[in-house]
């Protein structure tokens, strides 16, 4: 692993225009990937790409937030910011995976859920809430990898997992540093200064017990050597799934709920216990 770098540097790596997006990772992991579209309710949101593929012969449902690479693509993918129909498609495919007893792999890379009038009209809050709820009841193993930006509720909506992996320079945060600075200090330009206090790096997130594993990146960021970490990502996913598939499904759900039940730090006087 490269030497410890300040959080803002990692934010910049995570957002680097040449950093591989989910599509590149899917190409490597599952060359036979077949994309399945639409939420069956309203539209096909391209901010989320979903389908079926096999990773070393292991068939799984893969659902990813995709930012796109060229300008045209980025616009088509809404810069990786899902609308409600994106989350609803994701949950349709996750339930399908449960039905056909294959695991689900989520690849996370989003600045956050799309902030727009139509997204609100179609129930952004409900879509995210229902996503989280669905993932707590799906009886099939779930592995998530935070590839680059883990932005707030937009990331959490597909981030409930039995095993959670994070790339070394990925970030996972309550809000973008810009939004955070705007809310707390009324000045988005302070983003650079608040990034450290936000504790959004992979090491911080591991420390808080939210993720299970960090995958190292090439020195100077993933964009410098795109293929280098790919075998590590594949190994980590397969290792986790091979372990998870031996767990009885009822226990899998129990353990998933317990894992999140424990999260948080607080204080309590003896008196009320």
């Amino acid at each position: 692993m490269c030497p410890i770098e300040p959080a803002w540097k990692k934010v910049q790596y995570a957002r680097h225009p040449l950093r591989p997006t989910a599509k590149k990772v899917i190409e490597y992991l599952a060359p036979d990937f077949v994309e399945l579209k639409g939420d069956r309710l309203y539209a096909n949101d391209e901010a989320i790409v979903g389908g079926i593929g096999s990773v070393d012969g292991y068939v799984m449902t893969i659902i990813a937030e995709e930012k796109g690479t060229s300008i045209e693509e980025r616009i088509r993918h809404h810069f990786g910011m899902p609308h409600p129909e994106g989350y609803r498609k994701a949950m349709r495919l996750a339930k399908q995976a449960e039905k056909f007893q294959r695991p689900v792999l989520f690849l996370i890379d989003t600045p956050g859920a799309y902030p727009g009038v139509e997204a609100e009209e179609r129930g952004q809050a409900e879509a995210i809430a229902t996503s989280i709820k669905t993932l707590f009841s799906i009886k099939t193993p779930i592995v998530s990898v935070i590839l680059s930006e883990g932005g707030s509720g937009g990331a959490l909506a597909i981030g409930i997992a039995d095993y959670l992996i994070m790339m070394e320079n990925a970030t996972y945060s309550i809000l973008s540093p810009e939004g955070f600075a705007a809310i707390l200090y009324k000045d988005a330009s302070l983003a650079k200064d608040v990034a450290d206090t936000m504790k959004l790096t992979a090491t911080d997130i591991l420390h808080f017990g939210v993720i299970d594993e960090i995958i190292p990146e090439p020195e100077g960021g993933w964009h410098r050597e795109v293929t280098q970490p790919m075998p590590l990502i594949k190994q980590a996913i397969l290792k986790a799934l091979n372990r998870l598939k031996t767990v009885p499904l009822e226990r899998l759900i129990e353990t998933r709920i317990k894992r999140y039940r424990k999260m948080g730090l607080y204080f309590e006087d003896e008196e009320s216990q």
Partner: protein
Amino acid sequence: MDNFLDKHRSRVVYFQEKYRKRGKNNHKAEIPDQLFSKCPFCQELIYTKTLIEQAFVCPECGKYYPMSARDRIDQLTDSDSFEEIDRTLTSVNPLDFPGYNEKLVQAQEETGEREAFIGGWAKIDNIPLCVGVMDSHFLMGSMGSAIGEKIARLMELSIKRKSPLLIVSSSGGARMQEGILSLMQMAKTVALLTKHNESGLLFISLLTHPTTGGVSASFAMLGDIILAEKGALIGFAGKRVIQQTIKEDLPDGFQTAEFLMDHGMIDMVIDRKNASAVISQLLKFHEQRKNHVSN
């Protein structure tokens, strides 16, 4: 009635002070003892006792004052039926976030509460249930680890006692100062709610002004029945953020309770004064349900 008034007067004063600080009303109230108070919305002089009797709805302009969690519990539940749980559960500063400790102490002093959420066991029209209320006077009702834990425990109590659950939300969303752990409280509360749901128990979610961000995008929008108070701001993304993204004006009434009802997101918009009657009726329906289907 005098005791009742004393208990509530301080909160009316508190709200008015707070409102004044925001610069909307710069005159000090001239009336001694707060017997009368000036409505910050319509500037009319209101007999304070009337205001309290009217559930903090201005008798002149009809605007809703924000209610503290205690007032809300008094308004909704049978008198003296409320038994608080986890009273001493408080926030810590997991990120060592600068200024957070001071903010917590200040909010605790101003509101007299330990946290922005109060939960417990109560009765509505003699029907026992678990009730949790958020308090937007306390750091905008934002949800951090302590609140997540309190909500999780309230849901567990509700499962244990096989009782219905009512949560009244009023929150700006996840608590920024606790970073990723606040985000995880969305997952935590929904995890417990999934269990609650599987136990076949009723969850009524009452959304009040404001219910946004991480609270609307977790347990609050997952009620079996979702009620919202008239005119309340409810949504996911902040209005300013949306405006910056789309660069145009927002439609009239955007993100109000009425807007959400028109778009099929909630069951009904209610008047504050009818809240307990509506909730009581819904609770009664669910008490009787077992008689009508065979198992």
